[in-house]
């Protein structure tokens, strides 16, 4: 990476107290995102990917760990994440087009809300910006007067994206932005996000459970399981040469139209255990076809196994120094 990363996350941990037990939703996550880059964050339910995204924008507070945004340390004081001046440079796109817009607000007011909260714009300037944003996301200006229930899911998602772009952020966390949309509409929104990235130089953290969609938009992809990143690599390498057994299983499980002759036929058994804490060693070992003795006792750490390609698995002895330098 030539330019310094704009997002640096180290040892991020988020725990919840659930019925007496402690749930480690995010358990020591580390990654970087560079300017103009998209990092895909993939995982199934319970992986902690959404929680990670929410912590980055201040919707949840981290329990411990460090977050560096645009070169500034973000403090997590007493359970509240203080973003300070950095807040304007990040934004969030939500998953559910139903709930992400206030049903009583017109589209133009919803889009302009970040501007209104920040203040300082004349009415004319505000309206101009709203028009500009509507055009940017491919919606006709007349849509501004309408209420959310008058739009389809894809259109509402466009409004949500317009709202996210109102303050000209540089980094946008997209939390499953197309999962609730029909396939033909998904493609439109993914293309829109790609176009906007080119046009505005945005960086994305693209969180999703759909591996195929993640591939279409990301430059690098991180795979999460039970709160930890188990593998992170440039897109092509992750998809053609996955190293971690979970990544392999995930890729094998995706139902395909065009049969992939290289993937294994094995269906991974079992499920994510409800009591993650009770699993000693590698959290994936109960389901892993390659588990051996060491996996049952020692938790693997994320290690570089090739340039830019890291995996947390005892199968891969580290040829490089055990650090994140890539």
């Amino acid at each position: 990476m030539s330019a310094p990363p704009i997002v640096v996350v180290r040892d991020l941990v988020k725990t919840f107290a659930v019925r007496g037990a402690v749930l480690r939703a995010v358990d020591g996550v580390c990654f970087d995102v560079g300017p103009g880059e998209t990092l895909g964050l993939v995982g199934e339910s319970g992986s902690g990917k959404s929680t990670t995204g929410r912590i980055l924008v201040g919707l949840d507070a981290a329990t411990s760990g460090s977050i560096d945004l645009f070169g500034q340390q973000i403090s997590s004081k007493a359970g509240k994440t203080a973003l300070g001046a950095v807040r304007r440079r990040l934004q969030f796109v939500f998953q559910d087009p139903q709930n992400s817009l206030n049903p009583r607000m017109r589209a133009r007011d919803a889009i302009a809300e970040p501007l209104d909260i920040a203040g300082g714009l004349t009415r004319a300037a505000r309206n101009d910006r709203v028009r500009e944003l509507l055009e940017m996301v491919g919606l006709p200006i007349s849509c501004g007067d309408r209420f959310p229930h008058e739009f389809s899911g894809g259109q509402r998602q466009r409004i949500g994206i317009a709202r996210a772009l109102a303050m000209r952020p540089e980094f946008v966390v997209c939390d499953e932005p197309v999962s609730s949309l029909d396939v033909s509409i998904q493609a439109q929104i993914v293309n829109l996000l790609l176009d906007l990235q080119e046009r505005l130089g945005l960086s994305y953290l693209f969180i999703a459970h759909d591996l195929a969609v993640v591939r279409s938009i990301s430059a690098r992809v991180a795979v999460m399981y039970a709160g930890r990143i188990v593998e992170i690599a440039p897109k092509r390498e992750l998809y053609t040469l996955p190293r971690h057994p979970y990544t392999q299983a995930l890729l094998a499980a995706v139902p395909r139209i065009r049969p992939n002759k290289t993937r294994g036929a094995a269906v991974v058994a079992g499920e994510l255990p409800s009591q993650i804490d009770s699993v000693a060693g590698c959290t994936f070992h109960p389901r892993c076809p390659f588990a051996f003795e060491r996996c049952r006792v020692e938790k693997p750490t994320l290690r570089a196994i090739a340039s830019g390609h890291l995996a947390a698995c005892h199968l891969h002895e580290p040829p490089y120094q055990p650090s994140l330098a890539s």
Partner: protein
Amino acid sequence: MTDAVLTAASTQVLAERRRFRMLRQLAAHRSFRIGLVLVTILVLCAIIGPMLTGIDPTAMSIRFRFKPPSARFPFGTDQYGRDILTRVLHGGRLSLSIGFSVALLSGIFGALIGVAAGYFRTLDPYVMRSMDALMAFPAILLAIGIGAALGSQASSIVVALAVAYVPRTARIVRASVLVIREMEYLQAARVSGAGDLHIIVKHVLPNSLAPLIVQLTFVFAYAILAEAALSFLGIGPPPPAPSWGNIIAEGRDYSVEAWWVMLFPGLAVSLAALGMNLLGDGLRDVLDPRLKVET
């Protein structure tokens, strides 16, 4: 830009159909129509009525005591010869405005308390337990207690009934707030740096109003009935100023000989409460179809 063009066409179609859907649904709802008509008639009578009859509601006339309903006195006269029709019309003003004021007050305070409890979770247990304590008292008893302490005027009834009904409205608002605070549009505002006040005013309150308004129509109805009951018991607007309740109270001793004295204000109270209930049913069915009772 094919996407955008096609988008415009389809939003046009969607919009035309749904824009006035709620109003249309309300207009089609039978209960709502009946309720609206009843309430409108009563309110109009209360506002204009007294001016039409021109008779002083307190004017006594020994000559015309206990006259049954006739052309001259459509509702008859009471033991002081006062025209019941005029008294009912004037009483309507007082009773309906009491009902309205109680609904308004309990709505405002219920909203404040409900938002405080639902949005600021740390306050929730304290606030709601106090509401539970209030609800433990039967509304009428509570109203009697407060009314007795404050003295016999219309305003003390309003305060007493508002206090009695606030737990109900607060509970409704709190329930809405608990649902809304999980909505993503609220979180979107937070990501953009919105403070609690902005979020409460712009997002929480507007979306909690619908169930509250439905509840307020019912509170209005309860208040009118309660005012009648309280006046009947001797607490409330003192005579000679008429309210539906005290007309009924005064007619109590003559219920056999002069049945019309109790009947007509009683009918007025029933119709007002019924009308508001039907109105509320209609609003509830249209605004929150999940609560609808299949008929």
